[in-house]
């Protein structure tokens, strides 16, 4: 420790000198104005204390520069002749202790020694040459009048205050310019300070937010829970993080924010207040939600696909069953037909009229059953598998179907007008069956009052094409529309019109097979209109 100057502490005037000398020494040592003031204040506090309560006190200003230690310190050593001085320790000393880097108080027989040390910033050490210059500077300095001194000090304080204000303004501007809310809270959760973004975003100032307990900007359904969470948490003295939606004043939309709160704790471990921030994390939340939704969608899709597979499987099983059943039914039926045919051919002379009638009925029944099984087999054979879509001229299909029905057309003197139809990608065999069934129905359900006329034409829709079959037959009541396309559903008695009730069910199945649909409209006695709608495949 190298002494630079010393001051006897007797009157208040000496305090001025103490302050001035320390400011000067601090300046020489390269301390900032704030640090000079801090150290000067600390030493002044101790000095005032010893002037008031001590005896024969002296202040020694020195510099501690130890080779072993990397740091250098300004030292203020106060020696006082009153050994009982410690008993008088009051807030002056407590305050001073807080302001400096090192503080010690030692009692000896002759009195008391108080050491205050303040670290000199910078890495360049102050060498002995400079210290000698400082010593000579202090030795020649002239004392100033107390008035001048106070005036100068006031001026320095004003400058300091100005700088502080400037730095605070700058800090406030920086925080206000940030698009996030920075604030402090008291223990009750009331906002004490907030940057301007809080108002910019919520549209309310601090007092409005506090008064409403944030109800104005928080969703009603989480309001109670959020506060409960806070009350539970505030005694824990631990940082808090949670996501919360806040209503934006400009858009009136709730925006996800991340709330972070941290307690400011004093040396006794008590929370003085909380500092916090609210950051907009909406984009992130929306993305999370989208990803989650997407995942759910994927899962639902998989589930659906599984269901479709199951359905297809059971459908296929049903079709295979229908096929196998009708196939196996055919064999015994063939025998019945054969034997009854044989009987009627070679044994009719041996049986009476009643027997002949019954035999005739039996043949009729077995023929109907043959027809039924034949149709059912055809119906169950309509599989999508092993089929290929072929670009087919619908006019050719219509002509083929008409050729198949040639006998019936001629017998009924029917007229079938086919307008130019397009070329479509279809399963040709099945589509021909559909043409056949609908045209055959039109002939079958013709009105005896007039000759049958059927018009076949196409109509384009945006993404669909319709094939329309319009006849002038007996028509049907539209309330039976749904029934008409179901398997084994017949609208007429067998006596009136023969049939198995499979024809239109087959048409519907064929329409489905082409991802299309079939429907019809009619007024009884005024003909019917069957409309096949098919998607246009590019």
């Amino acid at each position, binding site marked *: 420790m190298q002494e630079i100057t010393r001051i006897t502490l007797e009157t208040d005037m000496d305090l001025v000198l103490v302050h001035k000398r320390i400011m000067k020494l601090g300046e020489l040592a390269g301390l900032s104005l704030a640090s000079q003031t801090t150290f000067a204040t600390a030493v002044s506090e101790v000095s005032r204390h010893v002037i008031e309560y001590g005896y024969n006190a002296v202040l020694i200003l020195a510099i501690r520069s130890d080779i072993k230690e990397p740091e250098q310190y300004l030292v203020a050593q106060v020696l006082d002749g009153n050994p009982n001085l410690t008993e008088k320790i009051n807030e002056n000393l407590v305050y001073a202790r807080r302001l400096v880097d090192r503080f010690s108080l030692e009692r000896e027989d002759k009195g008391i020694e108080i050491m205050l040390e303040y670290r000199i910033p910078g890495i360049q050490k102050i060498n002995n040459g400079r210290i000698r210059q400082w010593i000579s500077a202090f030795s020649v300095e002239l004392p100033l009048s107390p008035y001048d001194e106070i005036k100068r000090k006031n001026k320095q304080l004003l400058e300091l205050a100005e700088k502080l204000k400037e730095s605070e303004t700058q800090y406030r501007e920086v925080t206000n310019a940030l698009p996030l809310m920075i604030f402090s809270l008291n223990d009750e959760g009331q906002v004490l300070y907030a940057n301007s973004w809080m108002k910019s975003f919520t549209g309310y100032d601090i007092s409005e937010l506090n008064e409403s307990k944030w109800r104005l900007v928080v969703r009603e359904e989480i309001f109670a829970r959020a506060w409960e969470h806070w009350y539970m948490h505030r005694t824990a003295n631990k940082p808090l993080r949670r996501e919360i939606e806040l209503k934006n004043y400009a858009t009136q939309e709730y925006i996800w924010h991340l709330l972070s709160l941290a307690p400011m704790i004093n040396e006794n471990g008590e929370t003085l207040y909380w500092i916090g921030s609210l950051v907009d994390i909406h984009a992130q939340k929306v993305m999370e939600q989208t990803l989650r939704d997407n995942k759910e969608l994927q899962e639902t899709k998989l589930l659906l696909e599984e269901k479709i597979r199951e359905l297809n499987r059971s459908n296929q099983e049903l079709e295979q069953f229908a096929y196998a059943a009708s*196939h196996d039914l055919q064999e015994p039926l063939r*025998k019945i*037909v*054969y034997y009854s045919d*044989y009987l009627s051919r070679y044994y009719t002379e041996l049986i009476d009229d009643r027997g002949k009638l019954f035999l005739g009925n039996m043949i009729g029944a077995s023929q109907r059953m043959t027809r039924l099984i034949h149709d059912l*087999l055809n119906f169950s*054979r309509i599989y999508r598998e*092993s089929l290929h879509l072929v670009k087919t001229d619908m006019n050719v299909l219509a002509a083929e179907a008409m050729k198949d029905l040639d006998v019936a057309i001629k017998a009924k003197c029917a007229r079938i007008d086919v307008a130019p139809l397009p070329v479509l990608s279809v399963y040709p*065999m099945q589509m021909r069956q559909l043409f*056949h069934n609908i045209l055959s129905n039109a002939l079958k359900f013709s009105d005896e009052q007039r000759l049958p006329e059927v018009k076949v034409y196409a109509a384009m829709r945006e993404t669909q094409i319709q094939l329309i079959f319009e006849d002038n037959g007996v028509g049907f009541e539209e309330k039976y529309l749904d029934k008409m396309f179901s398997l084994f559903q017949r609208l007429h008695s067998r006596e009136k019109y023969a049939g198995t009730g499979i024809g239109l069910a087959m048409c519907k199945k064929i329409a489905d097979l082409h991802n299309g649909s079939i429907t019809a409209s009619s007024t009884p006695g005024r003909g019917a209109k069957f409309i096949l709608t098919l998607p246009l495949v590019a």
Partner: protein
Amino acid sequence: MESIVKILLADDDMEDRFIMQDAFNAINLPEVPLLVEDGEKALEYLANTHASAGVMPSLVVLDLNMPRLSGTQTLRELKSQLAYKDIPVIIFSSSLNVIEMHECKQLGALSYMVKPFTYEEYLSSAQHFYDFCLKKHSFPEFNSLINNFK
């Protein structure tokens, strides 16, 4: 000359065999059909006849749905053996099945017929089989059969 013509028919249905024999009897050709109850028996008959240098059948008619060796299996077997592969085979089934029809075509069957429903039809079938052996009748080609199928 006529007595040399033999037609081998395999059908597990006893009644069908009876009806067929009846039809051949009615057209005065009772010696022509050789009726066996399944594919195994058909192969056995061919093997024995071949071994004893007897008269090989001019035509083989196979039912499809038979126990042990089905019509298609028998067909495959016949077409894989040098001694039999040139004997024409007609499939004689109770129903028309396009998939089976394709399979039989690929295996080398000559034609595919649905079993008749009436006595008259049986008579004409028997006559057609016989006429075919004398090259007086030809059966429809598979392609036209498949095209006619609805």
